[in-house]
């Protein structure tokens, strides 16, 4: 059976959900071991075991949490001198991709990023990756050993299967020269009212809103529906709203019951983050906008006129 590693990302002592998502897939493919680095790893090990990890390789050195990417790269590279997994799975998240990128470069092997699925086929590792704007899906066979594959968040549902992992304390192996990019402070900016990833309803806005002052129309509808507001990369880049609201390939992946896209054209960057919604409603002035082709209901019209009326109607319904 193939030996598979899952890089279980920790953030300030907390196990991130991506590790459990990856385990859900990995344990269908082979013998799974998780690597957990940083404070909180020992506590995470129990959870990782319940989700199917047979062994958890861990170290709680503070350097893993205090410095960007390099300490974790050192530790993984050191482990790979004596261990030989066939596949190492990382989440396609900000922190994990930096570790995976450095590791691949250090090992001199390539990696496959942005995968939506990974399997073992004909003795090799095969990943499915969105291609050409997400309209196509390419099947990639990894050429390197170990294969390093980065999987998009929320590609798999975490599942507890019971079980206890053997805990192996490994050498941190952090080089002195790797304590460089230090996180000296963490600031939390105004939090969201309803977490975007968990919201039943997401209302997102794009350039079609015309200007940042109109984004409140999106927020008001989201609030009336008890949901969360999201945004396209275009208006995040333009500085209208913070990055925390970005839905898409490098933003958040959401799977709400209802997704309402207002003034969003539907570029792949955006749609890969929301096409898993049960119902998609799109409002766009342009009848040719690609988003209308994937919507269950497409309204060709002006979001600036429709949103306030819709908010009013929702409020009236909920109040009455």
């Amino acid at each position, binding site marked *: 059976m193939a030996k598979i590693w899952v890089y279980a990302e920790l953030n300030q002592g907390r196990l991130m959900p991506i590790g459990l998502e990856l385990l859900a897939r990995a344990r269908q493919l082979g013998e799974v071991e998780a690597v957990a680095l940083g404070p909180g790893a020992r506590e995470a090990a129990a959870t990782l075991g319940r989700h199917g990890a047979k062994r958890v390789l861990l170290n709680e050195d503070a350097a893993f949490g205090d410095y960007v990417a390099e300490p974790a790269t050192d530790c993984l590279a050191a482990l790979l001198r004596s261990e030989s997994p066939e596949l190492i799975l990382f989440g396609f998240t900000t922190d994990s991709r930096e570790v995976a990128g450095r590791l691949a470069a250090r090992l001199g092997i390539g990696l496959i990023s942005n995968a939506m699925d990974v399997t073992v086929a004909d003795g090799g590792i095969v990943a499915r990756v969105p291609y050409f704007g997400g*309209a196509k899906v390419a099947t990639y066979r990894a*050429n390197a050993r170990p294969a390093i594959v*980065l999987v998009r968040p929320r590609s798999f549902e975490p599942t507890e299967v019971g079980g206890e992992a053997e805990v192996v304390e490994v050498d941190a192996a952090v080089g002195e020269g790797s304590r460089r990019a*230090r996180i000296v402070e963490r600031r939390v900016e105004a939090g969201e009212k309803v977490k975007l990833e968990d919201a039943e309803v997401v209302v997102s806005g794009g350039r079609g809103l015309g200007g940042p002052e109109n984004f409140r129309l999106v927020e008001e509808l989201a609030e009336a529906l008890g949901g969360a507001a999201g945004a396209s990369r275009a208006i995040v880049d333009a500085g209208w709203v913070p990055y925390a609201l970005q839905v898409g390939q490098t933003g958040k992946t959401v799977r709400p019951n209802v997704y309402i896209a207002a003034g969003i054209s539907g570029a792949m960057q955006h749609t890969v983050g929301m096409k898993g919604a049960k119902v998609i409603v799109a409002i766009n002035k342009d009848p040719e906008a690609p988003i209308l082709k994937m919507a269950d209901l497409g309204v060709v*019209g002006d979001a600036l006129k429709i949103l306030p009326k819709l908010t009013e109607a929702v409020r009236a319904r909920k109040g009455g």
Partner: protein
Amino acid sequence: MKIVVTVKQVPDPNTPQALEADHTIARDRDVVLDPGDECGVEIGLQLKEAHGGEVVLVSMGPERARDAIRKGLSMGADRAIHITDPALAGADALLTARALAAAIGPESPDLVICATESYDGSTGMVPPMLAELLGLPQLTFAKRVEVADGRVTVHRQTEDGYQVVEAEAPALVTVTAAIAEPRYASLRGIMAARSKEIKTLGLADLGVEVGQPAETIEGVVDAESRTQGEIVEDDGSIGVEKIMSVLQAARVL
């Protein structure tokens, strides 16, 4: 301070993509300097203006990538290195990073600035690979960059706010589009760019060999697409009515 900014030419994000009959991406689209890289050039120029020094652009791409390089030079960068070689067509992230590292290394820059991710690939894998190959710390996802007394400090964007991350120079920084509004090239800048040096290097000049690519494409199929549902033209009331009935059916009211 010597600052290297990586720049890339990408298909114009404002024109639609097209596929050829054989599923390859049509190459006749308009190309532009990656909008994310414009922000990288801008912050590089601002740092030069504050601390003195030089801004060097490094780009990998076909002959016509020169237009993107010229754009960066007309914004105010001092000179450029253009890595171009037929063997680099379709290069994966690691080969790209190796070629860039081979060109950037001898420059011994104090700061390497990359966009967090490109507009076309959007995978952001090249910068961490490049940092590793150059032996530099990486300060990523910066929405703010400051350099003082040889220390580089960034505000690294996170899900719920930002981290303050710092390292001694030399370092590699990746910047988000929120970092700065790129300047327009002035007429004088455009004229001046014509006489600025663009050094062209091939793989042999760089001593880089094309290794095994990360993957072999086994097939390309249509994505499971959502089927188009009902389309209505809003007349002032039908849009809201239809949306309300969808919300009702989905039990979110």
